[in-house]
């Protein structure tokens, strides 16, 4: 796709394919491309540069302003981390904890994935790497009890931040979604108003199902923020446009690797530029 070149129908098609390839979805892509086609046919868009500028603006408009985490308005501030299997919840918690500790905050983790093999051991390693405290119970114990105990410990020790790790669960499994609602209720019992942030972790490699995940998790427990992981791959995470547009949930951060530092605030301009790479 060349720079100052005049455009034709093929150019429009190529840009449509670029948007589709980003996992933006046919519906969202069609809306943007119809807007583009309208401008092209009316003559207000003549070059490839015009097209790019139009697309960038359309996307940035949908994504809105950066909405990074605002932590610590309550003490302890409680973050509940949820999402489907294997998306990067546990690793993301390690990254958030590490950043919080390096900024001078005290952090405690709740190993509330009491189901998956070695989930507690995995989070324990992230706790020591990030210098966070951790509450863990026996494998197979009640996840809500782990969350509760971690928050009680945070209150008793005047800690700044509690992050609750939960087991991966498909949104289609109602008993597991009920368990998540219970974890939330129990957290709220320990501190009315908590969890202060319910973070849905979404894998950038997933396709349209990520929108459905967001809808169902939002209906179940209310999602206040999204972490988009594995953006260091070749997937573009375009599904966040639909998530933002349809659910208006802020995208807090992106994961860009397996390391403890591989976490960045979600910046709409940067995300949009990356779509065009």
């Amino acid at each position: 796709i060349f720079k100052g070149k005049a455009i034709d129908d093929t150019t429009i098609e190529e840009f449509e394919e670029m948007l589709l390839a980003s996992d933006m979805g046919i519906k969202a892509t069609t809306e943007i491309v119809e807007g583009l086609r309208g401008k092209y046919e009316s003559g207000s868009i003549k070059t490839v540069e015009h097209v790019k500028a139009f697309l960038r603006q359309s996307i940035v408009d949908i994504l809105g302003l950066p909405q990074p985490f605002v932590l610590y308005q309550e003490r302890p501030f409680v973050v509940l981390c949820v999402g489907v299997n294997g998306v990067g919840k546990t690793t993301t918690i390690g990254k958030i904890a590490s950043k919080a500790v390096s900024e001078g905050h005290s952090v405690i983790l709740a190993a509330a994935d009491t189901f998956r093999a070695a989930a507690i051991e995995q989070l324990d390693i992230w706790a020591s790497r990030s210098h966070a405290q951790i509450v863990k119970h026996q494998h197979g114990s009640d996840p809500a009890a782990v969350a509760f105990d971690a928050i009680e410990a945070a209150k008793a020790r005047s800690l700044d931040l509690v992050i609750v790790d939960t087991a991966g669960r498909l949104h289609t499994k109602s008993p597991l979604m009920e368990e998540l609602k219970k974890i939330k209720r129990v957290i709220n019992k320990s501190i009315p108003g908590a969890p202060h942030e319910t973070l849905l972790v979404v894998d950038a490699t997933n396709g349209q199902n990520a929108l459905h995940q967001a809808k169902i998790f939002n209906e179940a427990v209310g999602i206040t923020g999204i972490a988009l992981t594995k953006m260091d791959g070749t997937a573009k995470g375009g599904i966040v446009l639909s998530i933002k547009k349809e659910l208006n949930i802020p995208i807090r951060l992106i994961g860009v690797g397996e390391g403890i530092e591989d976490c960045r605030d979600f910046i709409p301009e940067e995300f949009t530029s990356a779509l065009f790479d």
Partner: protein
Amino acid sequence: SLSEKLESVFRKLKGKGVLVKDDIDAAMKEIRFALLEADVNFKVVKGFIDKVKEKSLGKGVLESLTPGQQVIKIVNDELCVLLGSENEKIRLSPNPPTVIMMIGLHGSGKTTTSAKLARHFKAQGRRPMLAAADLQRPAAIDQLITLGKQIDVPVFFSKEDKIPAVVCKNALNEAKKQARDIIILDTAGRLHIAEDLMKELKAVKDAVTPDEILFVADAMTGQDAVNIAKTFNEKIGIDGIILTKMDGDARGGAALSIREVTGRPIKFIGTGEKIDMLEPFHPERAASRILG
């Protein structure tokens, strides 16, 4: 559903009289929409639509009383052909142990599926062994050891070795010593674009010459399925595919994308978190799921 949309498209078109070739484009548009919604890669969709359009331009459709049904049948049949046949088993080596290497992106389900496969073979009366060759992820070795205990399958591991190829070579020697007839190597999740990690995986392959390299892919994978599968196939080589998390509600278009770009068979699907949730792949079921 796509069937209903196609029937409505053709009802409108037939209202104007006899169907002509251009009318088929309206039907193709609906099919394209359905496949893209289902996460089939846009290039794969293009090729698929071309095939379906060609088949739809015959008398069978244009002169049919139920052209919508005819087109749906063409789409379904074409999907099933592309998705491959059932019962593509894992071929066991005439010189045991059969070496199976599990590869794929982060979090796709390799470790869990390694254990599921071990259980599957054990239930068949075989003597599998697992090898913990993920030396990167925190508690990955513990995860496989825990799963191995659940099914009473030995797990070879080393908490000192730093090189996966070395661990796998030692695992293979141990499997031979213990007369295990299958060894399943669980490797670390990695990006297809991480040159050093792909080299590391190639080193494992060269060290133990696997009989079967299985690409473990998440059924929820979107458009990137083509890039990922193509690169893994080019850099390492894939013998078979396992599609995990099929117990969700993702349409699973990645199955078609991965099949199209690698030509390799989908041998199993993961249908749950528990260790017995591994099933054979059924193309017709996958096809109707993709079509929604």
